[in-house]
């Protein structure tokens, strides 16, 4: 060995992937169009999002008052123990219950009627206007016994109830629901319900005959006061007249009420000599059910309770009782960003082929799979960054604008917010990787960009905003890359709320991470295929 060296300085990174990343990053950032493309992606996302958010105009007219708009129309929405917005409106016939005790009833009838009076927020009173109402229960009309932390809307509770079409249920704290005896209630098939309290622990039982009892479930309501309201309740949510056969159709909602007949009412642990008092919970001018319907009648030991409303988490869309949005509504602009990101990512690959740059690239790093991996990291990383900035700004500004316009933004936990915002950014990143892989497969810019956009966006459009029936739409959002948009869904589809959970309403057939995994699967598949082909094909 001679002392003469003409070598490049020793490289610390023996592995080389770091260098490859550095090279690809330099390649990326030195093409002005691509950097601009990513900035455009972020800006377009924000702008389209704001365009969509900044245009609502909610008007309202309190009884006897002038017409008002915007923030003054924001409804006063109670928040449940879990932090979610809830509907907590029902007719409550109650007494005080001590730390230990129980309440037992038999329901021998549950009936209802609906329609006529229009929506709950309508000016006409659903309770008073019997005229024009149609007899019939709603699927989630509910009546039974309840022990609540207080009569304040949004308070913790546990309730045993008979429902219109879902049998006996134990429900607590709005989002929890356990099934008991199936079947409808009638005089021939009455239902016995019992709720016992032992400190913070509440246990629900049901029985068909009052002799053989089955425990439905046990609930802990931490910090329950010494004496709490307990008693009978009835509620009936909106009647939805959905023509939801086709995804794009619109639903009409109207008020409804339920009437339950109770007997064999036994309250242990109450105050001696106390009498039942009735009242509507959750009424008021800015409540979603402003004009309460309901009342009760006592004849001997038979109590008949009529009520309207619901005890359930709030949802958006047709099932909603007030103008509301969810945070992902303000992320609709991400589609604009997605298109820009797909363009940049596809070109990041196809540009290599246009002028034969790929030969230089592969001469510099002959391990072809790693080249593609490095490109995927760079383009995915930049897309994530652009998406994150865009999502944070869109959600922050969008929700504020919505509130200012009188649109109630349904609250979700911080963790969910992070999942939605970061997930949206990750969606862009994965879409970018998919587009990159398509670019490597097709090697033609226009074709790669078009395929990249069409496979992600078109299934979404067909699934969410087209004439496809809901079933077909759901399959589209299970099987195509558009499934990934599930990551944006902030509210779960509550089984105990009878809203039409269609893709058009923002409810995806797959759970958030499952949907995202479908998109990731497509990206991984395409990338693998691209690597295999890149290795096999002549450059």
């Amino acid at each position: 060995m001679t002392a003469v060296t003409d070598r490049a300085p020793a490289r610390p990174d023996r592995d080389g992937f770091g260098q490859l990343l550095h090279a690809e990053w330099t390649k990326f950032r030195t093409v002005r169009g691509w950097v601009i493309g990513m900035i455009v992606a972020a800006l377009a996302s924000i702008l389209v999002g704001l365009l969509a958010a900044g245009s609502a105009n909610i008007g309202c007219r309190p009884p006897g008052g002038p017409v008002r708009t915007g923030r003054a129309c924001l409804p006063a929405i109670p928040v449940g123990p879990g932090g979610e917005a809830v509907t907590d409106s029902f007719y409550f016939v109650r007494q005080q219950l001590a730390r230990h005790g129980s309440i037992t009833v038999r329901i021998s009838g549950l009936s209802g009627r609906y329609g006529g009076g229009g929506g709950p927020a309508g000016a006409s009173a659903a309770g008073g206007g019997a005229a024009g109402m149609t007899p019939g229960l709603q699927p989630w009309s509910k009546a039974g016994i309840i022990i609540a932390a207080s009569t304040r809307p949004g308070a913790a509770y546990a309730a045993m109830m008979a429902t219109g079409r879902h049998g006996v249920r134990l429900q607590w704290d709005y989002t929890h629901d356990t099934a008991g005896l199936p079947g409808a209630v009638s005089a021939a098939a009455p239902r016995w319900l019992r709720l016992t309290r032992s400190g913070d622990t509440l246990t629900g039982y049901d029985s068909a005959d009052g002799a053989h009892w089955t425990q439905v479930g046990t609930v802990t309501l931490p910090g329950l006061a010494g004496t709490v309201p307990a008693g009978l309740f009835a509620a009936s949510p909106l009647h939805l007249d959905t023509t939801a056969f086709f995804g794009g159709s619109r639903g009409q909602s109207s008020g409804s009420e339920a009437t339950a007949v109770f007997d064999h009412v036994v309250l242990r642990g109450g105050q001696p000599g106390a009498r039942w008092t009735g009242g509507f919970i959750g009424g008021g001018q800015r409540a979603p059910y402003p004009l309460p319907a309901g009342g009760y009648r006592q004849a001997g030991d038979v109590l008949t309770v009529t009520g309207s409303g619901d005890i359930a988490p709030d949802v958006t869309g047709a099932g909603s009782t007030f103008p509301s949005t969810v945070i992902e509504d303000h992320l609709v602009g991400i589609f604009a960003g997605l298109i820009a990101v797909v363009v940049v990512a596809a070109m990041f690959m196809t540009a290599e082929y246009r002028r034969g740059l790929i030969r230089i690239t592969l001469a510099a790093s002959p391990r072809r799979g790693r080249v593609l991996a490095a490109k995927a990291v760079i383009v995915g990383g930049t897309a994530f960054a652009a998406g994150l900035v865009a999502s944070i700004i869109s959600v922050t500004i969008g929700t504020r604008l919505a509130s200012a316009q009188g649109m109630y933004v349904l609250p979700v936990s911080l963790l969910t917010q992070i999942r939605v915002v970061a997930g949206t950014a990750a969606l862009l990143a994965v879409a970018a990787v998919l587009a990159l892989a398509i670019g490597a497969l097709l090697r033609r810019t226009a074709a790669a960009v078009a395929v990249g956009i069409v496979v992600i966006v078109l299934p979404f459009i067909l699934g969410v905003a087209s004439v496809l029936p809901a079933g077909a739409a759901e399959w589209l959002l299970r099987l195509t890359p558009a499934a990934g948009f599930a990551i944006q869904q902030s509210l779960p589809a509550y089984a105990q709320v009878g809203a039409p959970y269609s893709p058009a309403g923002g409810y995806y057939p797959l759970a958030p991470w499952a949907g995202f995994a479908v998109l990731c699967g497509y990206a991984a598949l395409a990338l693998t295929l691209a690597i295999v082909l890149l290795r096999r094909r002549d450059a």
Partner: protein
Amino acid sequence: MRPASEVAGRSATQAPRQGAGEQGDEGSRRHLAPRRRAGNSLLLAPHAEWTKLRTVPGTGWLLAGIVAATVAVSVLALAATRCPAGVACPADTARLSLTGVQAGQAVVAVLAVLAVSSEYSTGMIRVTLAAMPRRAELLAAKAAVVTGLVLAAGTAAVAGCLLAGRLLLPGHGFTAARGFPLLSLGDGAVLRAFAGSVLYLGLIGLLSVGLSVLIRDPGAAIGTVLGLLYLAPIVAAVLGASPVWQHRVERYAPAMAGLVIQDTTGLHGLPVGPWGGLGVLAAWAGAALLAGGLALRWRDA
């Protein structure tokens, strides 16, 4: 440096002249002089553009792609839709059968964008403009040829949709007895929906040509076109809380307004009439062509 002896020997450098490709004298030149075909000079540019398009293999594939994408997506939509007995189905069977147009339009956009931007990405636009310096004429020729091809492919695609609808709908509960007569071009509204869809695809082609002359880069052009077509329905879907804006998007967005031509039911509830909607799309296409034409006129090639 050149020695004098060699410079003096100029004859050596002249030697190749005799061997030049174009063999020399006036007689042979006359023989080689090009013979012009008689004909309308206005048709020269379209003829050249037609030759250009038909001599790249991509064109045939893309035209087949228009038909395939349209018919395939329509068949899938039809296959997924059923009208169970005893349920009211507020379906627009004509529109349902034409669902695939939303996929076919992407292929139309690719065809039209490529017809323009491949000239820019290769630099061939200079050859083209040197051969056809009248730029407005050139753009008109290109737009006409692209649109002609799209209309031809679109007719085949829409015919496929009609056939698929006629074959699949009755078996899925959409029978005449339940108020869904077999799709027929004899029905004015159905004829309008299907023929209008062909025109729709043609207008998407024009829009794409105009925008890609303006944008030149194939990736950016196709992204812009598809963004214009696909963003509006998504934005409109979340605009439920602001009906005024929703109405505006549905009325003025090119793809949303244009696709109203496919509606055969519930016409009075639509934000824009069928032909009015197609007119909105035509206005977009015209504006894009105008902008592209002005850019082509004033920009250095």
